[in-house]
């Protein structure tokens, strides 16, 4: 198939970007979207002669495992994070989802919390910072009792696994009009709140992670759930409800403790 690509090009965070149009022909319907971009890049290298400006350099995009699990790839294609298919990442999108002669618009994730590094590559370090604020169980290596010493109901274990499937790609943020990271945060909070190992610090965790999220420039959740629709791992919005319950519970509990400590009721 022959395609017209409109791709966001930007040399670095402090320079201006623009859409650039490229024509690419003879693309097989069986190849993946990223393999199509590989072919565009190969063409850009082969067609260039001497020093070239940034629009003639290969298009930069993040990717690594190319099997939908590492969470590194993420392109905003024709107005949708990860493009026109559901339950997949960009690297799993295949060209058979497009038609010969199509024009495809490719943009990076757009969010204040994700500054652009180059072209379609953004800095998602904010998501790591949220995990560092409490997305863990505080155990050191060694001295752990037998793994079967605490039975966990299959139901809770399965729900925890559903939430833990999050790959941290940031599509939820990119899909959200407010650039909220609630689905991401709620997935980690839920996973650990559902397991006895994570319960012990659940109250501190939820407060600390939400506080970090708010400080990093993510917007508020207004319950439109575009995040759930675009999540490549189909993480459920019910995790957001759980996060809210956990958060309110933690707040109430914390305020009671403060009152008690002050000698009140």
């Amino acid at each position, binding site marked *: 198939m022959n395609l017209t690509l409109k791709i966001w090009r930007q040399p670095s965070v402090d320079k201006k970007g623009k859409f650039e149009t490229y024509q690419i022909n003879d693309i097989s319907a069986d190849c993946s979207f990223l393999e199509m971009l590989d072919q565009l890049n190969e063409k*850009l*290298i082969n067609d260039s002669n001497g020093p070239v400006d940034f629009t003639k350099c290969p298009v930069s995009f993040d990717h690594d495992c*190319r099997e939908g699990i590492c969470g*590194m790839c993420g392109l905003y294609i024709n107005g949708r994070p990860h493009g026109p298919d559901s339950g997949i990442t960009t690297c799993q999108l295949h060209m058979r989802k497009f038609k010969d002669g199509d024009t495809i618009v490719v943009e990076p994730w757009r969010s204040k919390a994700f500054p652009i590094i180059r072209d379609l590559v953004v800095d998602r370090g904010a998501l790591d910072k949220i995990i560092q604020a409490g997305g863990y*169980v505080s155990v050191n290596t060694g001295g*752990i*009792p037998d*793994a079967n010493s605490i039975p966990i109901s299959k139901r809770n*274990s399965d729900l925890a696994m559903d939430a833990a499937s999050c790959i941290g790609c940031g599509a939820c943020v990119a899909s959200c009009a407010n650039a909220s990271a609630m689905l991401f945060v709620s997935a980690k909070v839920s996973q650990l709140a559902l397991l006895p190992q994570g319960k012990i610090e659940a109250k501190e965790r939820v407060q600390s992670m939400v506080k970090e999220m708010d400080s990093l420039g993510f917007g508020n959740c207004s319950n439109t759930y575009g995040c759930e629709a675009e999540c490549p791992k189909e993480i459920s919005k019910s995790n957001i409800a759980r996060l809210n319950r956990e958060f309110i519970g933690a707040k109430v509990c914390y305020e009671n403790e403060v009152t008690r400590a002050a000698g009140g009721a």
Partner: protein
Amino acid sequence: MSKIESKIPDGPIAEKWSNFKSHCKLVNPSNKRKIDIIVVGTGLAGASAAASLGELGYNVKIFCYQDSPRRAHSIAAQGGINAAKNYQNDGDSVFRLFYDTVKGGDYRAREANVYRLAEVSNSIIDQCVAQGVPFARDYGGLLDNRSFGGAQVSRTFYARGQTGQQLLLGAYSTLSRQIKKGTVKMYNRRDVLDVVVVDGKARGVITRNLTTGEIEKHFGHAVVLATGGYGNVFFLSTNAMGSNVTPAWAAYKKGAFFGNPCFTQIHPTCIPVHGDFQSKLTLMSESLRNDGRIWVPKNIEDVEKLRNKTLKPKDISEENRDYYLERRYPAFGNLVPRDVASRAAKERCDAGYGVGATGLAVFLDFSEAIGRLGKSVVEARYGNLFQMYEKIVDENPYETPMMIYPAVHYTMGGIWVDYNLMTTVPGLYALGECNFSDHGANRLGASALMQGLADGYFVIPYTIADYLADEIHTPRMSVDAPEFVAAEKAVKERLEKFISIKGTHSVDYFHKKLGKVMWEYCGMGRNEEGLKKALELIPVIRKEFWSDLKINGELNEYNPEIEKAGRVADFLEMGELMVRDALNRRESCGGHFREEMQTEEGEAKRDDVNFAYAAAWEYTGTDSEPVLHKEQLEFKDIELKQRNYK
């Protein structure tokens, strides 16, 4: 006189590790604060090592090329992780896991290391559960297990088809905790381009900041490499696009011997190659072989009809199908180890019975399982894999058999290490897939995750102290020391060379060319003639690369072409060492199949008299031949036997 010393502790095999731990040197807490450790790679081995060392009080710096430590390719492991818990009461034990791993590795691994691996396997499961890893459970709330990769016992713990992801996220979370505490400093989007050696000891690394292109120097009292495998030397593999040999190769050039480089695992159940533009291969968990039956048509006419689409696979009757694994290996059938299954597929395809557009595929058929178990059970077990297959191939595996073909997946070879996981350069360690030590010539399913976490959580924290105890008087070194400056200069010169060639072909062009040579002559079947041919072809491609490479863009900016150029430059040298090692090893063992060395039935023929050793190669210069050192493998607790899966 060999320069290598394996440092295996004395005593009976079951007591070696305890003896070591009881007698190794320790570093007291106030001294740990004065010691810096560099860890390269944030996969299972690197993340678990950095977190554990940070908890102990060392200052850790950890590096990865991805945007986040959570992306490392351990994340793609699907099937599971082995441990000798014997929760299923089916006769498992530490000894049995040890035995199976040594036998599965075709008796080319070091007994003492493998025993320790089996011994610490149980602690890994405890650790991961405590971190909140949601392993599969039974209705009673206890952990579930499955049998995997031909094991006779159910010892594999799993988290759906995403075990690697869940274990890595566990390690990543514990690493994140240390980053927050300040004991570990994270450097993401960094390529580690050289290892700095001062007075014979590893003292640091040279890195390139991938966002800005800046070259940076970092000091450490010790350097730990956990950089994974080098399967991307073949261009097409199941590795991540960025997986590379560069830090390991830099270590090799600085004096770390390379162990068994030719031992490569070709995984039998991958989605077949479909075109020249293909960038990587996708693995389907081998758990599929628990219920799927592998076959090709019995009659060559049917192959032809399938290809021109006048016949559908399901219309070929039972008696006209060749279930070749069940035919050749009645005892293990479709569950034979990976190397055996891969070679058998190649044998059928080479004989002309392969299916699919290229003839390089075999069927993996679930119709019998769907009939026996019902579609819903098959869906519960493999639904996510079936969906993944359908997204890629656009065929529904519930209705028509899957097509699979072997693909490069894992490298058992790696940097040679002693029992302490130290390389031949003092203070330089190699962990996980990056080292050579535990899987011999073939790795069993669900053992890679086990080894990565064993090395990181439970081995390196002890063994590194034994070295660092003598380093407490070494002050932190300035990165302006001449050795750092010289290494930085060499790195910069090489990068500038990439840009200055201004040739006519992209990095990928050379990478694909190398990959074809490696796959053709050093892939599933190897012979003297082909290997010698590869030894002629690779230097020609290398020369062409260094005179005709074309890179757009600059050094001092985000430029993935520069990253790729560095990786491919190293693969072009690494490939040659693999071929040399394969040529030297005139025996068939595990993933290394020398066509001259097979039985009359076409099975691998090992030569224990001449080759019961680990090959450790010493670098002597890019254009001079490396020197071979041999670590003779002693089998005191396991009797050497020809593997037999019939």
